[in-house]
């Protein structure tokens, strides 16, 4: 190719290159969060030298983290795209209920061996299919009708919960086959299978968001949907992918939750919904979209889990944990605000 043309093309794509570099760039604002995490772990280790800095505590934390973690990932992707998905817990519960129904009501109780594997695979596939349908419907409503995602997902959340409650009459289904329970009970090299699953998925989502065209486009529509559309990106397709991905993550969360609680119901884990937003924002996801990284979210989840475990070992009420989470979020926001205005003042002088 003619070098002049190539140079011209490069000049034309330079802003995009810069954007992609910024999205891929090393996490700059995760440093502060890591510092906070280290400070908290140090504080709890000082207060609880006998119980906190122990492998068992770490393992307990790894058992508890995955379900909130997976749901937070399901929330973070729509947030980065400038939207939100309020239906994540509802989706996870409904997928869980469908799988639980197949495994408890349809499957004969004394199945074993290959037949059991087949039943399990069938149940998982049914849950997967349901979450795909929910994700597609949500995505199409957001993309085509041009309605704000808060409203769409408020509607789908109410609708999905409505169906779950209608079909179960508020009951829970429990008693699942052994192999499923293992996900949240068995450990490999000291780490629970559910935690390993979560880490692998988190890395996958990180790669998707930072290294793949879809991820870059998700960031772009989060910054400016119209500009992205005018630059030739099929924004509707991206939006549908966002809610499809979110819904798929809910399906994985549903499997982990089934394994951990050994039950499925319409009301399980409803309090997680707002906590996932809290975790994502704490992790540096911009509530207005366009920015946020999975590394930050992961550190934020570790911070929340460290507080929860530390308070638990100090025999403080779980309610105080929730209050402290809220305070931490406000404090981090306040620090960000003051450093931003401090920087702005020093740049101008």
């Amino acid at each position, binding site marked *: 190719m003619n070098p002049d043309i190539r140079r011209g093309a490069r000049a034309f794509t330079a802003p995009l290159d810069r954007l992609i570099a910024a999205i891929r760039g090393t996490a700059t604002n995760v440093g502060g969060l890591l510092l906070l995490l280290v400070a908290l772990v140090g504080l709890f280790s000082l207060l609880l030298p006998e119980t906190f800095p122990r492998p068992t505590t770490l393992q307990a934390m790894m058992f508890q983290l995955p379900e909130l973690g997976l749901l937070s990932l399901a929330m973070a992707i729509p947030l980065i795209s400038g939207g939100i998905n*309020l239906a994540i817990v509802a989706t996870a519960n409904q997928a869980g209920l469908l799988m639980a129904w197949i495994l408890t009501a349809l499957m004969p109780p004394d199945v074993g061996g290959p037949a059991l594997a087949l039943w399990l695979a069938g149940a998982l596939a049914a849950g997967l299919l349901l979450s795909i349908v929910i994700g597609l419907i949500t995505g199409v*409503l957001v993309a085509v*009708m*041009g*309605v*704000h995602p*808060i*409203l*769409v997902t*408020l*509607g*789908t*959340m*109410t*609708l*999905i*919960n*409505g*169906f779950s*409650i*209608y079909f179960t*009459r*508020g009951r829970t289904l429990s008693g699942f086959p052994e192999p499923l329970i293992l996900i949240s009970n068995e450990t490999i090299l000291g780490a629970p299978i559910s935690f390993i699953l979560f880490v692998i998925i988190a890395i996958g989502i990180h790669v998707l968001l930072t290294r793949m065209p879809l991820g870059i486009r998700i960031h772009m529509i989060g910054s400016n949907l119209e500009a992205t559309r005018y630059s030739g990106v099929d924004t509707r397709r991206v939006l549908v992918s966002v809610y499809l991905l979110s819904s798929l993550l809910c399906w994985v969360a549903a499997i982990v939750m089934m394994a951990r609680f050994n039950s499925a119901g319409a009301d399980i884990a*409803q309090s997680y919904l*707002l*906590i996932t*937003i*809290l975790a994502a*924002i704490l992790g540096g996801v911009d*509530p*207005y979209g366009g920015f946020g990284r999975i590394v930050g979210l992961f550190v934020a989840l570790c911070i929340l889990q460290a507080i929860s475990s530390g308070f638990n070992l100090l025999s403080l*009420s779980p*309610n*105080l*944990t*929730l*209050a402290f*989470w*809220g*305070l931490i*979020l*406000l404090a981090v*926001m*306040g620090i960000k*605000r003051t450093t931003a205005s401090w920087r702005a003042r020093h740049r101008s002088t």
Partner: protein
Amino acid sequence: MRSLAEAIFGRTETALAAFILLAAAVFSFASPYFLTLSNAADLVEAYSVTTILAAGVFVVLVSGGIDISFAATASAAQYLAAYVATSYGFPALPSIALACMLGIVLGSVNALLTYYLRVASIIVTIATSSIYYALLIYFTDGTEIYNLPDWWSDRIVFFRYATNSGDIVRITLPIVIMAVVALVTRFLMSRTRIGRQIYALGGNPEAASRIGINILGVQLFVYGYLGFLAGIAGFVQAHRVHQAVPTAMVGQELNVLAVAILGGATLSGGVGSMGGVVLGVLLLAMLQNGLNLLGVSSYFFGVVIGLAILVSTSMTGYAEKRMRRRHVLKAN
């Protein structure tokens, strides 16, 4: 020229009214018990707490913000009033005033944090909601207060009327409070200076600030007003169920938000009317009652609300989109 369909569906209020008439016609045709006066009064009373809260949320939405801490605020205010009334024998007015004052204080905290941290109000109120609620449960241990004084738990009937068929229509305290709140909110939003400032702030915050509107002042008013109404709603809720339960209203946040949005308030702010909110509540109440009378399981109601929200928001969203496109075409 606007087509007839656009004239009807362009405004949320007219669309809601049309749906209400349609639902009323279908249900009264299907069940003779529907649309009796006593039935209507019961319906309205059942939705009184939701309407009072929705009025406050509506004001916040018009200003361009969102608040989801009001359920925690209402619970805290209710508990505080119940506590001073039972443990210290506070009479009616001081107890209610204390509840409303706590509501205003907690609401103002939201306003201050939103203003000074420059963070989306939904984030601030998620955080404060966690804090308010967690502290409430921590300090109360989640225990209920059953022995409310008589002035609080006795049913107050302002107006009683026996119809020819023997049904009794009661206009009770919750209905009256709800009506007063709706009227005051309507007056406030459409006839006062602060109301117009709230619309201006929601429509375009930058412009509102340039023409000299005190943004912090308006935000303090808006969130304080929701807190005040949360205090009243907490009082009415305890009046209806004869006890103060710290967890009674938690989980209602998104339902109330849904009602305000069904009534035509948008998340971008600057739009909406109190009449629309009342119509939205009316539609939900009628759907719930009509389906009950038709023998549809009450478990099915969540599905109906979900559909109602999706249909109404899709309709307004689609109408807005078409209107925008037309503006673009005209400009060219």
